């Protein structure tokens, strides 16, 4: 029953950069389902900008692997969603195409960087979307907009076609209103792709189960301490109690090295950004470079004019953290921190099956409210990226009418288990 989906969203939140009014679809597991794609995921024939002027007008000649798989399963690719420029931010406010607003409260940010995808799902414009997550960019907006978002295990989803700003941390992942839909979407996009050398052939083929009896949940003290809004801590603690009520066992754990996570993530992201974004020079794509000038001068001109302030700042930072005299102090230290964090999580996962805590330390805020350098990386989300482990955010109540996210992290390649835990909680509080 292939056909064309008529898609004309009432996009009050500015969730989309590009909407495809007539989207073709086919047969398969996602037949006829409208799926929105974060605008840093390549779509053949559809403009892909990463919310940056420097890619305005760029039309990829190829589909990202995840997009290929969606099409194979019949999904209708209805549009490209707004984000922080190149995925750097947690507000979707650094987009060159204007900020996205939070559908729950248009005065507030939707979170980021995959804020357009979260808002499109939360506003009911699409049932599901693909986001990307290098330091919390799926989970933060999922939490702020009251939807479900999964950052898969690193290596579970092909990054081929993902215009990563930090490829060693970043994964494409599903965002939807229900855990079940997140599970449906991840089962389509995990098929093996030899073009991503970091990918393992471990497709997800699982139906969520609400059975959490005998499950051991670790409660990290670091996730409920300083910097975390008390009301969020309480709300999340209540949610964990619900899981306990279902037969799960909880135990306090400590992951001391997570205090390094935001700084380590910031350095690794910026370092990779400085290299990944260097190719945007206006020669092969994007706004045309002035070919009459010497190359450095011409590149500087096109990059100054078309990269936003946040992107430029991070390119500068990453150039510094990799440069002679600084690489040892920053880049090497960040890698060492990452290794410690990975080991700490492995140690904790010897004793518990999953780790649960809040997704974000605050609820959705107003634009401009949060300006400290801490906004550079998600305090509570970045550890999962550094450790490469799966992490899901599922809505677990509200504070002042604004959604709160419960974050569940699991062992590498145990995405099934974090989905089950989220599903168990969701089913219990719905019924």
């Amino acid at each position, binding site marked *: 029953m292939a056909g064309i989906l008529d898609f004309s969203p009432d996009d009050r939140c500015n969730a989309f950069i590009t909407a495809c009014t007539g989207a073709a679809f086919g047969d398969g597991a996602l037949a006829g389902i409208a799926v929105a794609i974060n605008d840093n995921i390549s779509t053949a024939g559809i403009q892909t900008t990463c919310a940056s002027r420097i890619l305005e007008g760029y039309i990829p000649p190829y589909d990202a692997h995840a997009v290929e798989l969606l099409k194979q399963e019949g999904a209708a690719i209805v549009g490209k969603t707004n984000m922080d420029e190149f995925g750097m931010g947690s507000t979707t406010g650094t987009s060159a195409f204007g900020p996205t607003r939070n559908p729950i409260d248009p005065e507030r940010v939707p979170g980021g960087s995959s804020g357009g995808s979260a808002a499109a799902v939360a506003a009911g414009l699409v049932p599901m979307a693909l986001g990307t997550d290098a330091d919390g960019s799926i989970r933060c907006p999922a939490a702020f907009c009251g939807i479900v978002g999964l950052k898969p295990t690193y290596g579970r989803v092909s990054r081929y076609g993902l215009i990563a700003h930090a490829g060693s941390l970043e994964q494409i992942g599903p965002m939807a209103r229900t855990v079940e839909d997140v599970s449906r979407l991840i089962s389509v996009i995990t098929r093996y792709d030899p*073009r991503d050398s970091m990918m393992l052939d471990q497709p997800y083929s699982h139906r969520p189960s609400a059975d959490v009896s005998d499950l051991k949940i670790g409660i990290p003290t670091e996730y409920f301490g300083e910097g975390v809004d008390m009301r969020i801590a309480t709300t999340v603690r209540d949610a964990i109690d619900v899981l306990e009520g279902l037969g799960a066992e909880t135990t306090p754990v400590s992951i001391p090295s997570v205090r390094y996570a935001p700084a380590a993530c910031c350095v690794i992201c910026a370092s990779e950004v400085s290299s990944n974004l260097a190719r945007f020079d206006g020669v092969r794509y994007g706004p045309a470079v002035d*070919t009459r000038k010497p*190359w450095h001068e011409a590149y500087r001109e096109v990059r100054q004019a078309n990269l936003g302030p946040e992107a430029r700042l991070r390119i500068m930072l990453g150039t510094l953290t990799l440069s002679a005299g600084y690489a040892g102090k920053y880049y090497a230290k960040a890698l060492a921190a990452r290794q410690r964090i990975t080991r700490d999580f492995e140690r904790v996962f010897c004793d518990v099956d999953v780790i649960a805590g809040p997704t974000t330390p605050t609820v959705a805020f107003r634009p401009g409210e949060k300006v400290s350098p801490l906004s550079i990386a998600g305090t509570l989300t970045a550890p999962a990226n550094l450790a490469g482990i799966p992490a899901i955010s599922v809505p677990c109540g509200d504070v002042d009418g604004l959604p709160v996210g419960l974050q569940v992290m699991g062992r590498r390649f145990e995405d099934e288990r974090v989905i089950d835990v989220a599903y168990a909680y969701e089913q219990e509080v719905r019924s």
Partner: protein
Amino acid sequence: MKTIIGLEVHVQLATATKLFCGCSTDYQDDNPNTHCCPTCLGLPGALPCLNKRAVEYGLRVAKALDMKVLEESEFARKNYFYPDLVKAYQITQDDRPLAVEGTIEIEDDQGHEKIVRITRVHLEEDPGRLVHVAGASKYSLVDYNRSGIPLLEIVTEPDMRSPQEARRFLNKLRTILEYLEVFDGDREGGLRVDANISLEGSERVEVKNISSYKGVEKALTFEVTRQRNLLRRGLAVARETRHFMEGRGITTSSRGKEEAHDYRYFPDPDLGPLRVAGWVAGIDLPELPTARRDRFMEQYGVSLNHARTLTGDLRLADFYEEIAGTDPVLAATWVADILLGELNYRTMGIAAVPPGHITELLDLLRAGTITDRAGVQVLREMLDACAEDRPCERPAAIIEREGLSRASGDEFTSLVRAVVAANPQAVEDYRNGKEGALNFLVGQVMKETRGRADPRELRRIVSESIKMGEV
């Protein structure tokens, strides 16, 4: 003043596809930008995937040069901006290359064996090709067909002492690579060299952009002279990078064009590590040039010089072994001393020469059917035909057609008699002790026989004939 030279050689590996994508490497005759995909164009989101054969080729070289393959090596990004570099970084290897510490044996300027130490070999991707457009508005045109071609960079210690040694090193390296079948020597730009050269006690100069191995000797010779002249005038040699202008045979300073480099190497997060040291034991190396040279001397009894020449090119060595036959020393002489020169003169390769014809020619020479001189004439006829793509006649047919068989018997005697009779003055001079007069007379007979007579034999007969005339 000792000259100190070290080389960095970039070799295009003869794989079917590029280093990190499936685009074909066979683009030489194709239009620009027709062998490109998202990966080698550096399109946003594309990822590299390593070509296994390139790694195998690299390991083959490492084993042949007796190197230590690292237990774990990795790819790194070298970050810099240039219009031929699609991602603004080159995927290469930095502090963990494929292999380290090897050797290559060459001849020094005195003809003695010497060892050049190899520091390291590593894999990296070739950038695209730039065409510079001059004129009122200057700009570049880029062809990305070359972008992503696998390169093996081979770095030597500063062990060479003259431009000639550097050239011999490159010849030897090229031969080894051809023997290993990892390199296509006919490919334009397939081997490119950066050279470091200094005079002892002075600063080091890097000469970049030497795109032919013959250019290396030229560039380095120019540098030695330039640096010597500076020192003679009491000036210092500046530590700098210079570019070799192939057409003009000179190097020019690129000062001001290059900024202080900080490549900000870091491990490429898109590629996992290589753990291939264990593969080395399973690699079967072919017989390498030095071993083959020694075998030629032993098996065929040819001289060291002939053995070196014959094994200095894989196809030449194969050709020789095909035609060595019953008289390998004669074959070696003809191939190394005569055939090669004739080929060079015609800028022909050995591949164009039909071995069967040469075998026949050698047989005819050995049987005394023709003289050496007539043999050369036959050879030239054949090579001309091959070079001009005409059907190549067999030697016997050429001899028959041209009447080149060795003059003998009556024909010979009457010719000598006629020449002696026609040149009484020369005969007189010879009798008066002028040796040169004999040469003249022999030359006259040679002319008449068009080389069909053996000059030494002729000399004896003419001289005897004059003496007989005396009696």
